[in-house]
């Protein structure tokens, strides 16, 4: 087993863990942590599986990961900006499970 594969497997496990946390938690900050850890896992898979391991890791994969990291921070930043505004408006940043609200909507 090469270390690259090891990192890829770790990435896969991180994704699964992150997913579980994302679904189990309702608090926004916890979900964002989970999202970022999932993202880290995906990046590990991406680089770990990328073909070719010379002196330097696959430059394309590196570039993709860099892009991914920036996108992730943008998403986190947006979510927090929305959450701050929600907090200001008196809302609750503990979001309910996305698919469990069906019946509430009917009562509006």
């Amino acid at each position: 087993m090469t270390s690259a594969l090891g990192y890829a497997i770790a990435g896969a496990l991180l994704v699964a863990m992150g997913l579980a946390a994302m679904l189990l938690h309702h608090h926004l900050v916890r979900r964002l942590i989970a999202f970022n850890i999932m993202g880290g896992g995906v990046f590990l898979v991406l680089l770990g599986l990328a073909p070719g391991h010379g002196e330097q890791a696959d430059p394309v994969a590196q570039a993709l990961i860099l892009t991914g990291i920036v996108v992730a921070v943008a998403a986190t930043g947006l979510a927090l900006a929305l959450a701050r505004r929600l907090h200001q408006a008196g809302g609750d940043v503990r979001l309910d499970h996305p698919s469990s609200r069906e019946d509430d909507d009917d009562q509006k």
Partner: protein
Amino acid sequence: MIRSDALLPILVMLPLSLALLLLLSGRWGRFLSLAGMVLTTALAALLLSHGGQPLHHAMGGWPAPLGIGLRADGLATLMVMMTALVCSAALIYGEYWFDGAKAEQGRQFRPLAWLLWAGVNALLLADDLFNLYVTLELLTLLAAGLAALMATQAALTAALRYLMVALIASTAFLLGVALLYGATGTLALELISIRVAANPQPVLVVAMALMVGGLALKAALFPLHGWLPPAHGGAAPPVSALLSALVVKASFYVVLRLWMGPLAPLTGGVGPVLGVLGGMAIVWGGWQALRQHNLKMVVAYSTVAQMGYLFLAFDLLQGAGYASALNGMVLQAVAHGLAKGAMFLAAGALVVAAGGYRVDQLQGMASRQPLAVTALAVAGISLAGMPPTAGFAGKWLLLQAAWLNGQWLWLAVMLAGSLLTASYLLKVVAVTFLPAPVAASVGCGQRLGGVALMLALLALLAGFAVMPMLQLLAPVATTGGWL
């Protein structure tokens, strides 16, 4: 001299550059936006005039595996045109809707909507897997931001919930990309198709499940649809129109692209799953729409049901019915884009005029807001798949595909879905014929309804342009778009 295939990057860059200019411009924004609308729509028409001949542009001049390509075939062309029409309508509508106290949000809406237009075009023309991811992410963030624009507690909560769901979906999609990249060593869709076909390893099934699952989540496929109604129902009407007509459809489009391209050898077992979920979406979405008392929620649940048709069609995309199903689902997508856009715009106009969201507040609207009611009705006729609209053409072809494949259950579900659609729309339209209450006369012009009606009429007229549209699709239908 500009290259002829420069049209493709221009279709992305023009809206993007305009969005930037709009961020800087003050009073002139409105005119800039209008001029840009005309220009971009004209460019979309120019693309249409290529008649579906595949157009390709290598970004940076680097050919595909190294660089990123843009690509337009008949399918992309049609969607680009639909996008141009919906975006134009939403932007014009926005100019009227965001006025007075909402003027400030209107100033913010404009550049964001233009960015969205750029993002949708970028997604439609993308020929690279990772590029698809970036465009999807751009759309997701824009959609969440736009959904939150009204900054009410409900809108913010819905936007955040949507964002969380969409981020899970994006992550799943990206993981699929990572697996595909690892297995094929490339990101160019065409090359992936070749390599997948050459070596269809089991890993690819996992990659496919991740990507299709993620996209289904973003497309609000039953039972992953819970986030959609509050997010789309709670947003400002022009935003709802953009989200329901374009953003949700973008995810569907990516599934379709992958389905016909890279994932084609693997789709066997997945079709029935999507079919079942799509069928349930049709029934459940329709039933929920029927139960809603909030006008915008009716329309939002209708999106859930209509997306069901699009996903059900993946199970029809096989055997003797392949070409019919493909044609049908593309027509359905175009028709739904136009009709649903019109419907949200019309609903917005009615809500303004009625001073409330409830369906029972719509009394008298048939005479007070005839344009908006007509728009709602015409769009509804298209959604219910009644002739002579584009929606009818789409449904006819889908039914034909089901018939050719002998998929009787889907045939029945689609027909029943039409009746459900007709019932929840009838419920809304009927109320407008009741006499208006004497009080409660909120001053509101016909302009909002007029814009909505324009879009609805396009859905109607598209029903007479079916053959030209299918001609555009003919190469896609025979070759699956690639190879």
